[in-house]
């Protein structure tokens, strides 16, 4: 038993190490804030600054915005963007709601299959949705021609329809496919969190099922619903891949930025349109944040999980609904694959791998594909490390409230930033040899990474940061803060606890974050299209370039390759996760 004299030095040793550990934590937290300031705040400030200057860098105040809003050719794009976003959300969120409801509240079979398939569109660049729609509904599309006259020849009736794809119809269709999986994900999380006792009470009070739906189910998911609406609005408002392919003469903001910057190298106007694009997005983001704050815990210790509904008619309806949506997605993906294999659509339907050769063609072919895979791997590794560690510092530190809150807000901010705007801001921020600050010219320390792989990785890290950060935070919240308290009182440095306890326990979340970074980096076009250099062609950009040149079948082929890489990656991540959880997650099972 230690005497009083023995414990005294021990205590001072502990408090000393605590003191230095606190400082180390504070320094790391500060570093996390600093990285977000450099990667998010400063580039955005730069783009705002450029929108207030003319092409020669002379301060012009709001003149660019005035030009923008008085030029009908440009400002109609704003209304067009708002219109397609609203229309898409009106269709995609209800569809996603019913789908998510079926997966969470009913006990239909094949749930895993339905969920997996619904996620599939996330694996492809949005350009593919447009390209595939052309093959389905374009003038020579399968549907438009009634499967090349097959129906009228064989079955004697002609079901062919021309939906007038090019323009808003095409954009809205593509965006529905694009936003559906994301809205569905958010809504299924919201629908899962419920208390069966509410339904029992409603039943006991004799409320009809419709009434129960409107008084119990809907209020219970209103925050999730709002999130789904905001995310869907932001996604279509800022997407550029689909409008580029099927937009025809229907201009939207995102394609305007591309045309201004790539087509006319008019950076000032590009920055101006970016700010116009940014404003509604930031508004939607702030609204969502504000409302989410008011959300109180629905699940308390006494909650009873809701048993999925087994009423036969409900099951049948939801099963049919999910089957229909899945069938649609299968036809969609199948068409993309078919189109990439057909020799000369629609005149020579024999199959060949001709379009997978990428010979005599822009874009970079298989070099581009391997660059994309490398970039996605780097983004996954670097992104996961930075995201998880900063989430840990923010979630598991004590004190330093304002620093942590700042870091939290900055970590959520990228959610509101469209890829195109990040890309453009990065050109301005990283390509400038010097920064002008209050009349001083400061040499840009980051200028070196411009035109390299590093800036592409950085751009992906920021673009997909928030969702990963949220995943990490959620996983960390499930870990009791006692771990930190105990190790602190035992004099174990926090980094040891981090590597021995926190990280292993959160492994499934960490793998999931890595996968998210990988899959999205493979598929993204918008953020990297301004930043890739001639030395480092990328697969998703190649899709855009080949489409520009009119090589649509090879563009479809490259998209198919991107989807395949992502399917393989998903399986590898799943396998790794299963192996690792076997070793690190046994604590969560009861000893038997």
């Amino acid at each position: 038993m230690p005497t009083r004299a023995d414990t005294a030095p021990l205590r001072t040793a502990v408090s000393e190490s605590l003191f230095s550990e606190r400082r180390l934590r504070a320094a790391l937290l500060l570093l996390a804030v600093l990285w977000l300031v450099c990667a998010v705040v400063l580039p955005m400030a730069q783009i705002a600054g450029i929108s207030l200057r003319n092409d020669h860098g002379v301060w012009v105040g709001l003149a660019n915005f005035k030009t923008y809003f008085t030029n009908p050719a440009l400002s109609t794009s704003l209304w067009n963007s708002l219109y397609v976003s609203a229309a898409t959300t009106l269709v995609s969120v209800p569809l996603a709601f019913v789908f998510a409801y079926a997966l969470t509240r009913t006990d239909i079979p094949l749930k895993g299959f339905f969920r997996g398939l619904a996620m599939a569109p996330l694996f492809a660049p949005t350009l593919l949705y447009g390209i595939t729609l052309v093959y389905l509904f374009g003038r020579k599309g399968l549907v438009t021609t009634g499967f090349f006259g097959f129906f009228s020849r064989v079955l004697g009736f002609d079901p062919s329809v021309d939906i007038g794809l090019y323009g808003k119809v095409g954009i809205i269709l593509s965006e529905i496919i694009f936003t559906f999986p994301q809205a569905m994900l958010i809504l299924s999380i919201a629908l899962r969190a419920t208390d069966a006792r509410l339904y029992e009470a409603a039943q006991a009070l004799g409320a009809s099922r419709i009434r129960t739906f409107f008084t119990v189910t809907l209020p219970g998911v209103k925050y999730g619903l709002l999130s789904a609406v905001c995310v869907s609005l932001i996604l279509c408002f800022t997407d550029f891949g689909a409008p580029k392919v099927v937009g025809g003469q229907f201009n939207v903001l995102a394609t305007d930025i591309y045309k201004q910057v790539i087509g006319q190298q008019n950076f000032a106007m590009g920055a101006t349109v970016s700010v116009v694009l940014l404003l509604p997005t930031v508004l939607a983001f702030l609204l969502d944040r504000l409302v989410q704050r008011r959300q109180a815990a629905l699940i308390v210790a006494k909650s009873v999980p809701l048993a999925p509904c087994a009423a036969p008619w409900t099951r049948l309806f939801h099963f049919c609904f999910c089957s229909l949506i899945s069938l649609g997605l299968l036809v969609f993906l199948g068409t993309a694959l078919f189109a990439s294999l057909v020799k000369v659509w629609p005149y020579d339907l024999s199959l060949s791998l001709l379009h997978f050769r990428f010979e005599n063609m822009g874009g970079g072919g298989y070099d581009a594909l391997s660059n994309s895979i490398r970039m996605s791997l780097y983004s996954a590794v670097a992104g996961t490390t930075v995201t998880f560690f900063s989430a840990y510092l923010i979630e598991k530190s004590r004190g330093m409230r304002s620093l942590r809150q700042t870091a939290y807000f900055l970590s959520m901010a990228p959610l509101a930033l469209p890829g195109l705007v990040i890309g453009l801001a990065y050109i301005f921020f990283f390509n400038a040899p010097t920064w002008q600050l209050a009349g001083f010219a400061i040499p840009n320390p980051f200028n070196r990474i411009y035109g390299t792989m590093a800036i592409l990785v950085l751009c992906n890290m920021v673009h997909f940061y928030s969702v990963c950060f949220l995943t990490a935070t959620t996983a960390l919240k499930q870990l009791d803060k006692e771990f930190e308290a105990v190790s602190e009182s035992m004099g174990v440095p926090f980094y040891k606890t981090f590597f021995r306890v926190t990280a292993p326990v959160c492994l499934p979340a960490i793998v999931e974050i890595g996968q998210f970074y990988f899959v999205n980096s493979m598929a993204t076009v918008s953020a990297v299209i301004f930043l890739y250099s001639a030395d480092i062609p990328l697969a998703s950009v190649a899709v855009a370039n080949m489409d520009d040149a009119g090589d649509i079948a090879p563009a479809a082929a490259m998209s198919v390759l991107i989807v395949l890489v992502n399917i393989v990656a998903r399986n590898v991540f799943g396998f790794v996760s299963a192996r690792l959880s076997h070793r690190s997650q046994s604590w969560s099972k009861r000893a038997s």
Partner: protein
Amino acid sequence: MKRILMALCLVALCSAHALAGEVLVYTALEDDQIPRYIKSFKEKHPDITVKFVRDSTGIVTAKLLAEKTNPQADVVWGLSAVSLMQIEQAGMLEPYTPKDGAKVLPSFKDAAADPAWFGIDAWMTGFCVNTVELGNKKLPLPASYADLTKPEYKGMVTMPNPASSGTGFLTVSAILQLLGEEKGWAYLDKLHENISSYTHSGSKPCKLAGTGEAVIGISFGYRGLQQKKKGEPIETVFPKEGSGWDLEANALVKKAEIKPEAKVFLDWALSLDAMKEYAQSFALTGYPTGEPVPAGFPADPSKQMIKNDFEWAAKNRDHILAEWTKRYDGKSEPKK
């Protein structure tokens, strides 16, 4: 003697070393032409690495102009002469006469005493018409610009956006020169009624016609003949009124450090070997090569080409593009 030998060796080494570098080439040539063209350069100069930035004419032009303060490109290869004139006016070209420069026809090079650019080929407007689709609709082959505005072709015509595409610009410029500005814009207004979409590149309308997504694509001769070879049902029509045309030309970019490799590249790009390859794609080249006119082109291509005022086109390019964008780019979908 030994010393002299050593010195000679050293010089040889140095010069060899100096040529073992790389050139950055900005080009608007077609993606399927570049590998074929560059083959003979790679054989002759295996030690020089050539890097390409390839895009449509408008994009390459805009990129060059945007980089004015800090030019990246060493050489421009196969860019529209109208664009090169604009770039020359911006003071971005260094006059350099390549080895075979004297052979180039006077009408194919910069008129200045010390020419800044040399043409390698002339490319001209051609309509890519999908004969299967036209046959299905029982419509005749259009033969002229005037035919394209006929109501029966409504929604069937695709043309390149002149702001990004060189082919688009030379066509618009030819129409304005043939009809005069007032009538020219009136014609384009009428044509707009029949257009289904304006594309980013000059080759896309032809490729769209090849898949039947468009019936008539306003594009250029080479593209249509190439698509037909691939098995697409494309007939290339050279309009009765005459084709708009432009030269694809080369130039040296003015920058602080002009690499010797850049000049090596330009010498090669005007050599007979290179010129013979250009002659496989185009009816007219910088100087006669003795190669036959490629199948599908008019027998006397120079008669098909309009009298083109390059000076006028270069001077008015910005103004024409601004007017075009105002008239047609801002409109939402064309009325059905």
